[in-house]
């Protein structure tokens, strides 16, 4: 193999100029305060993965179409690819790595294993984070597009398979484990 020509090279230095100035931020991630400097254009997703090494949160589309990057910000589900890290300064973030308690799986994690709610597992952190927050939304009486009567408050007892399908449809799964995901979420919701 002969190099055809000399490679043109830059300096590779993280020179701080103009738009590329890094900004300091502090996030509470899975209960721990983490401070770092990030480029203003860095998404929360990239900051979690590249700055904090929390690679459980996945990048699949990087434009808000698939749900693989779902995390909780102040208790609500959020697509971490669709927000900048700098915008979340001071917020409480929970990622898939923060769901276990004292070595015990969260009920949804256990239900995903029991019902085989995943195959390759790549969409799974996003599915699980979505499911945990979705059950809280249902408990807080939020209706969905599948709710037949939005004139009265929704109750968790109405969280049917159709409701779960609708509420989980922001999370794509190309291995297509959907029926098992519905079973896992239904079981965990019933027990919660």
């Amino acid at each position: 193999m002969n190099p055809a020509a000399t490679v043109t090279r830059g300096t590779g230095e993280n020179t701080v100029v103009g738009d590329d100035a890094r900004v300091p931020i502090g996030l509470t991630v899975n209960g721990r305060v983490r401070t770092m400097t990030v480029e203003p254009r860095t998404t929360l997703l990239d900051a979690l993965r590249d700055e904090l090494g929390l690679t459980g949160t996945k990048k699949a589309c990087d434009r808000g179409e698939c749900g693989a990057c779902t995390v909780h910000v102040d208790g609500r589900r959020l697509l971490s690819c669709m927000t900048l890290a700098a915008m979340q300064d001071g917020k409480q973030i929970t990622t898939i790595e923060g769901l276990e308690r004292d070595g015990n799986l969260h009920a949804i994690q256990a239900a995903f294993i029991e019902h085989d709610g995943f195959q390759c597992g790549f969409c799974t952190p996003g599915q699980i984070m979505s499911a945990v927050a979705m059950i809280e939304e249902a408990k807080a009486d939020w209706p969905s597009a599948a709710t037949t009567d939005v004139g009265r408050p929704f109750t968790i007892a109405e969280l049917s398979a159709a409701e779960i399908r609708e509420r989980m449809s922001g999370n794509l799964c190309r291995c297509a484990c959907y029926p098992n995901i519905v079973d896992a979420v239904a079981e965990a919701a019933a027990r919660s």
Partner: protein
Amino acid sequence: MNAIGQPISRFDGRLKVTGAARYTADIPLADATHAAIVHSTIANGRTVSIDTTTAEKAPGVFAVFTHRTMPRMNPTPKPWSHLHPHGQSYLPLQDDQIHYAGQPVALVVAGTLDQAAYAGTLIRVEYDARRPVVFGSQATKEAVDPPQFLWPVASSVGDADKAVAAAAVKIEQTYTTSDRHHNQMEPHATTAAWDADGTLTLYETTQHIFGTRELLSIVLGIPEEKINVVSQFLGGGFGGKAYVWPHTLLAALAAKVLKRPVRLQLTRAQMYAMVGHQPATIQTIALGAGKDGKLTGIRHDSISPTPIFDSYIEYAGLVSRSLWAVSGGITTKHKVVHVHRNTPTAMRSPHEALGHFALESAMDELAYAIGIDPVALRLRNDTQLDPHSGRPFSTRAMRECLRAGGARFGWDKRTPEPRSMRDGRDLIGQGMAGAIYTHWRWPAKARVTLKRDGSAVVETGTHELGAGTYTVMQQVAADTLGLAPEKVTVRLGDTRLPASHASIGSSTMANAGASVMLAAKAARDRAIDLTLTGRNAPFAGAVRGDVLISDGRLMLARTNLQITYAELLARNGLATLVGDGDYDPVEEANGPKAVFSFAAVFAEVRVDPDLGLVRLNRFVGAYDAGRIINPKTARSQAIGGIIWGVGQALLEQSETDPVLGRFLNRNYSGYLVPTNADIPQLETLFVGEFDEEASPLGAKGLGELTAVSVAPAIANAVYHATGKRVRELPITVEKLL
């Protein structure tokens, strides 16, 4: 106790639900740099100039490569074929030619991903553009005969033309399928790191670590021993990660030049041109049959697009060679049209899922033409002899698939006339189809090590794509060794492990699984030897056949003599006992029997008569995939396959700009895949039996079988609901208005 046949939860489940499973882009690597690709915006022509000066000065940039500066690559053997697992023969950044839109024209390496991507936007490219050739209605005129690739390009048994011409009933129709993209959730990713001694370690999203190593060795001109390829968890493959694509070569060479690890993850949009796709097909089928429905002839021709530089063939006609008994003759023929696009590749389920749409739709048309029930028509044409090779099928439970699937579905309650079933104002339609899937026999190696603590380790260079490989290999080793599954650890996905085959064609269980079984047997036999002839042998003088093993304990029949693996190793002063498994079967085509998996699938749809919107109501699939090793993971594969078929039937199509020649809908909001809300409950039945011809484990291929014939079952159901026969996939609303 038997682990095989039990619905055991996944061995790697905990890793996957906690985010601890490390996929390729998750591997932490000190000093890693990030690469971004700059693409051609034209589909045909050449680059006249590429100005990289501003990009090189951008913050964080280490290097910018173009065709002038990227080191040369060795071409792969001609003619191009998947046997050297090269996604496409055209190598990246080697000349100024442009053969497809999205082709790389530059590579930027920088300290962070954002820096690399931003610098890429500063590169100015001038083109000399020409009008690209695209695959369209002109295609049939430009089609040419390709060189042979996987199977013979054309086949002929008997005289199909004569049989069809003389038939009492004839169906002759053209069916088309669309270009589709795999869209695995995990984008392709590569991290390349070179040691000081010139060893390349490549973390790669691949279904074929050994093939990747072989190809890199050829292209980079370094010995295979100097390359390690690692793929321990794959975020979906579906055939799209079976071969080596250009970005992998770019990352490996950039890392070599820069002497620093380079990470390159494709963006979602890049997944539409940097890696392969399933090509569209235009298929013409002619069926000839008697008034009794018995087939006398089949002619099945298919045309598909391929790039200017390679001849990829989508063997849509394959299915017609072996699915049904045909008395007079069968011919199949494949042609290609060279257009400006990158090379297509295998996508779940290549060849079969496309061909079945044509054949099983035509069978439904035949059933209506004769006035016979579609299930009865299939039963009438069932056979135990492969019409193509003349060999008997090893096992073929088609009859049982039709019977059990139909009973579960309630097929007998269907009224056959189109538009005869309703639910409120919605039209209800029920359709079915049969299916056949090729079985692959490939060599595979494995190693099983019994350890002094009574546990065992399985090591084999196969992959976990989502099918549950870690789990099923654990089950196979546990049963063979006589150990509880929890005592067995499985290591996969590293070329430093014993060599295995590509995880494609639903072959892993039957082949890699057989190698694990043989390795476990070898380790177990060595342990038995020690009980008979080892140090202070507990069963000295006994015969091997009397040694039984259960729960890690070796026992001598009709005595109380026993010893655990742990005690046996300690007594013999051994830290480990190793067994090697070398599975080296004859190729299926050269065996005495024809080995295939089979299915019958039943779909019910609901169609809104005003909007033409089709929704799947329910679905039953009955499968003969031989012995099922793990019913839980098998069911998951089956529902996944069915949903793949729903995507093929109703949603998925990659659209090409007719002027610019580029794929247009390069994201999940333009390229629709099924979502949770699209899918009802699905029922799966496994009716197969142990098939010793298929594998020593008795298993046949399953994963891809389940994605086959979903589309024709749905299309047939749509016909039943509406009276409209849609012969073009996907079945979108405008086709029903």
